[in-house]
């Protein structure tokens, strides 16, 4: 898996074009953010983590809960 991730990174990063700061207006749009609603994303991730055997992947783990 790590090999696949490294390979994907290499392919993507090599295929990047140079984008000047004044050409990044579209990338700054709210709908292009990694999370468009942080509170909802926090709740969703908490629910998934309490109903599935997996968690994490997009940051360090936060505080725990005894969620059943």
């Amino acid at each position, binding site marked *: *898996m*790590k090999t696949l*991730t490294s390979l*994907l*990174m290499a392919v*993507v*990063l090599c*295929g*990047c*074009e*140079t*984008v*000047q*700061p*004044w*050409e*990044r*207006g*579209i*990338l*700054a*749009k709210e*709908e*292009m*953010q*990694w*999370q*468009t*609603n*942080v*509170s*909802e*994303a*926090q*709740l*969703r991730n908490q*629910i*998934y983590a*309490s*109903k*599935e*055997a*997996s*968690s*994490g*992947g*997009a*940051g*360090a*783990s*936060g*505080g*725990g*809960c*005894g969620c*059943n």
Partner: protein
Amino acid sequence: MSRPKDERNKTVLALTSSALLLPAYQGALADAQPEFTEVGMRYSKYDEDDILSRKAFGGGSERYEIDVAQFHLLAPVADQWSFALDVAWEDMSGASPWFVGESASGSPKVIMSGASIEDTRTEVSGTTRYYFDRGNAGLNYTYSDEDDYTSNAVAVDGAFNSEDGLTTYSAAVSTSHDDIDPTQGTIPTNTLSARKDVNSVWVGVSRIVSKRALVRFGLSYTYRDGFLTDPYKGDDRRPDERKEWAASAGYRHFFDAPNAALHVDYRYFNDDWDVQSHTVDIAWEQNLPQNFRVTPFIRYYTQHEAEFFYNLEDPSYEYFADDYRLSAFGAFSYGLRLRHDFGDWSINLDAERYKTDESWGIYSGEESPGLVDFWRYGIGLDYIFR
């Protein structure tokens, strides 16, 4: 010929850099200090489907439902700092699977805990963040308190942009110390009091691919140590440590003609309990006239069962769990978000349906009779003090 870097371009650069950064701790970062204070309130309802009578002894039964209220504040402080406060209140009630037994026909059925669970949870999380020329660093403390569970967690994260601003490198570490004190009622518990520690590290990189596309990759390792058994499930016996790896990737692409953005996220998870999983999240953020935005989304999840998951117990097993959350299954969820901006306000509505089935997974295994389906609804209101 290149344009001069005027004030407008500085603004775009700051905004774009924030678009690049990875969520190092529970949310999006920004490497430019927020210009205004923003607050938000949100209410959500989580409602599990009743368990079917053919899957439970004693007939069908209601399961869990939770009311959740959330408050969010983000404010600039001094010249290069910000402070964020997140508070969540949860009110839980209902029943959950207690253990699995064998029916007269030989099929496994769940025995529910009875509609006896009543609990509330309060979580308070504060984050201070320092911003410098090419990145930021944050310190977070989170306290969570329930009748039977207390957690104290600290996390440190940082993000650093490359000189051309095209690449952002991020990292985070966290540690959590949890106390478990199960409520003593009609159901015997697996411990009277226990502790659990969770330590986690994460690294990530994100990159501008084009004027309309971003990509990111992340890798995390989590070590859990202590009482990992479910205190309320009958005869649950789990190892006292767990090592988890997760690799993730994300992609964002903006399409001019429909005025919409495509979100694609993937995560691979693996641990030393023999759990593996794949998660794919896809969303389409469609802008509409009058400052409306509608976002349909779909998620697929599949997991391999833990090596000590069985529906029916054999006392010779060193470890044993009949917890449906450790069984092999697949899950589809789908939903819709609606957002409307008016002045300094925005309102968000969302709904999600989550359904599971053993046959939807790519890994085969014993089907647990306790698999859960649920609905989630939410409404939120945000305000910016300009």
